[in-house]
């Protein structure tokens, strides 16, 4: 044990000297430090958002230092109570969350919800996309819709966990075309990699997920995109919308940031200013473009209203799916 510890110490000391990023301030520092709370495990969408924000805020000189804490599980409903109970009043805390958490709060009948934290801003969005294996007989969304109408249970869908955004979108599509939603043959996978493998291996009829999950596979021609859930076509994505193809469903999975409960108005204003400055920075704009996110920035008040609307909408969908 002794040896192991000494060895570990030496190496950690060497390694830790490295991540200290150079700070070249070209903007005014708004906060000394900011601490991100990510209610998901490292590697996922919220985590990437937090780490991108951390990077942008530091390189743009908006904050002195930043840290990320992950408390993953159950669509964020494991982390949320912790953020509410342990982070209350801490003016340097920012939780990254999104639409997925609203669905999870409803489906898990969570005792806490997003009205107990302080909305700061909606940041980015991502469109959902329906894809099929390259061997699939479905060429357009209509082909898929026709099959869905003929025998709902024969069309199998691969996507994320039950009650998540992928499942909700699939349910909305089935409902819009008049198929029996309770017969939807939705196969839930826990990680993006597994769902992609099922589609690549032609194990399911179609797949549904965020565009970022599939974009590289689509670009490589390994799978075919049939339609996206966005309101209108998106520059750089050569895929028609559901609406264009006669399926009246629009859906955007958004992510935003929240401050802990009970923070002072002054702290709230500072955090809002920090996020606003970050969104307007060229670094952030470049990241958004690079990662093919949609910029759906909404400041605090508009964001709070959006959350209320989404709560009602998602509750309705989950009830028809039998999940709420």
């Amino acid at each position: 044990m002794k040896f192991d510890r000494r060895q570990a110490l030496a190496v950690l000391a060497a390694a830790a000297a490295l991540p200290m990023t150079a700070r070249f301030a070209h903007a005014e520092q708004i906060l000394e430090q900011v601490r991100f709370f990510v209610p998901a495990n490292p590697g996922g969408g919220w985590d990437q958002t937090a780490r991108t924000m951390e990077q942008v805020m530091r390189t743009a000189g908006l904050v002195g230092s930043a840290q990320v804490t992950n408390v993953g599980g159950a669509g964020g409903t494991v982390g949320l109570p912790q953020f509410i109970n342990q982070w209350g009043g801490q003016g340097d805390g920012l939780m990254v969350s999104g639409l997925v958490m609203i669905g999870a709060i409803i489906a898990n009948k969570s005792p806490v919800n997003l009205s107990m934290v302080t909305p700061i801003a909606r940041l980015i969005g991502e469109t959902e996309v329906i894809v099929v294996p390259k061997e699939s007989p479905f060429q357009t969304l209509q082909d898929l819709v026709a099959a869905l109408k003929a025998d709902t249970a024969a069309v199998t869908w691969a996507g994320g966990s039950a009650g998540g955004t992928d499942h909700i979108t699939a349910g909305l599509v089935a409902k819009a075309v008049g198929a029996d939603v309770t017969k939807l043959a939705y196969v839930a996978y826990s990680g993006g990699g597994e769902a992609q493998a099922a589609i690549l291996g032609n194990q399911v009829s179609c797949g549904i997920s965020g565009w970022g999950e599939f974009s590289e596979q689509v670009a490589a021609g390994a799978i075919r995109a049939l339609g996206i859930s966005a309101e209108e076509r998106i520059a750089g994505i050569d895929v028609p919308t559901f609406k264009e193809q006669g399926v009246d469903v629009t859906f955007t999975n958004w992510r935003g940031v929240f401050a802990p409960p009970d923070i002072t108005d002054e702290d709230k204003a500072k955090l809002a200013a920090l996020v606003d400055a970050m969104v307007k920075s060229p670094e952030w704009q470049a990241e958004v473009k690079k990662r093919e996110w949609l910029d759906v920035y909404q400041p605090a008040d508009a964001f709070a209203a959006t959350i209320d609307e989404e709560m009602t909408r998602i509750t309705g969908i989950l009830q028809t799916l039998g999940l709420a």
Partner: protein
Amino acid sequence: MASQLRPGTVAVSLAVLCTGIGVIVTTMAAPTSPMYAKVGPTAFPYAIGACLCGLGVLLFLDAWRGRWQAEATERPDERLDMKAVGLVVAGFLAAMALVGQAGFILAATALFTLATLAFGERRVWLSAPLGFLIALSAYTVFAKLLGLRMGDGLIERLL
């Protein structure tokens, strides 16, 4: 045969049986989802509960016939040192109570010290400072250098 009957093994077998029954009862009480699934979320729990019941019965038969050769039955005269086990449990409880307010370092020091006591190390003046040093270095390495967030506390604030 009854002379070989050990109350411990009987209790364990009954506990397994009760767990099995508990699993089945809990599953029956669970709401069923109307969602499309040929095999629903209750099928496996029922199967596992039923198997645990069956295993509980088999364990009971083993215990009843005295066929259960185990540490606890082989040497019944050599009792487990409950005081030592209690000290380790106390170490955990102390750590759980302390970790929120006093912080990781003091909580881990308490756990370390009580665990060394359990192993018969009575020199607390030696083990407590050593535990503190180990906890401190673990905290420094993981929280300070690697950025693992291990919470706040009395000592942590001074660092």
